[in-house]
């Protein structure tokens, strides 16, 4: 089986990656919108406007995501196993 990059079939794969992932920078270097670094923010959230984002707490989600990354990183540093099997199949959840 060959991997595909066919644009139609893999657009969602591309958007998932380009909009939600990639290297993260120190926040103070980034451009700020309304005092908040534009960093790890989903584009659709950016599209909805920063104010709406703040109002509905998307910023908090981002913060939580960062915390969970930090937590996992700490686990790793401490020599604990990452929780790789912690969320199993969709219906088992």
């Amino acid at each position: 089986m060959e991997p595909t990059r066919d644009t139609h079939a893999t657009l969602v794969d591309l958007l998932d990656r380009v909009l939600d992932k990639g290297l993260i920078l120190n926040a103070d270097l980034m451009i700020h919108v309304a005092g908040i670094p534009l960093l790890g923010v989903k584009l659709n959230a950016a599209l909805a406007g920063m104010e709406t984002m703040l109002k509905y707490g998307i910023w908090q989600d981002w913060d939580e995501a960062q915390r969970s990354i930090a937590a996992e990183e700490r686990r790793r540093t401490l020599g604990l196993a990452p929780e790789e099997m912690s969320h199993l199949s969709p219906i088992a959840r």
Partner: protein
Amino acid sequence: MEQEKGRYLYGVAASESAVRLGPMGIEGCDVYTIPYGDFCAIVHNCPTEPYQSTDEEMVKRWVSAHQGVLDEAKERFGAVIPFGFDTILQPGDEATSPDQVVKDWLKGDYERLCSIMEKIKDRDEYGVQIFYEPGLIGRQIAEQSQEIQKLKEEIATKSPGMAYIYRQKLEKVAKAEMEKLADRWFKDFYGRLKPHCDDIVIEKTRKADGDRVMLLNLSCLVHKEKVDSLGRELEEINNMDGFSVHFSGPWPPYSFVAKAVVSIKGE
């Protein structure tokens, strides 16, 4: 240009060259590299504002351009550490030039970039999604489960009222069986794919189109020499009755470059 104090970052490559890649960036912007040490940042000049639009087609074009630049950079320089969309650096004060900010950042983050580069060298990211057809699997479960067979036989002998209650029980048993199976498949498939991957990120499953359920959604970091063997493993799963596989890539290692960082200066 005075208004273009921002530097839109596409990625970082292991190359010390300062080159122009041409007008291939978002909205045809000129893309070039800013080197520091053994690395260079791939950038274009922009205002210090994020790209924002409510026009979905435009967003798709931007995202495609972002990816296109990374493809070109990979072609030229080999491994590239990708940034997500809308990563824009700006100078903290008037005295610092925007290019200098990028250099300062490369310098400050040098060690981290080295370790990420080491991890992704000769590797690409692939998306793997495995789906199952609940209808077909459900029929298989019904044929194989003794409990279900027994319930079915009992239903035939019951009054219509009792049969209804038994059918509900039957549905519940079938659903539980399916969940138990899905759990087993997940572990089984994950275990089969793991030897072919250097790292795996388990992604949230999405709603699938048609009569399919997404069982697992993985981002896999795969060495270029293991792509074929991963493909063969996926082929086998794809050929199983009731299962199908979506295999996308190669992508820049978007899912494997974010973890190493949480530092926000000043903390």
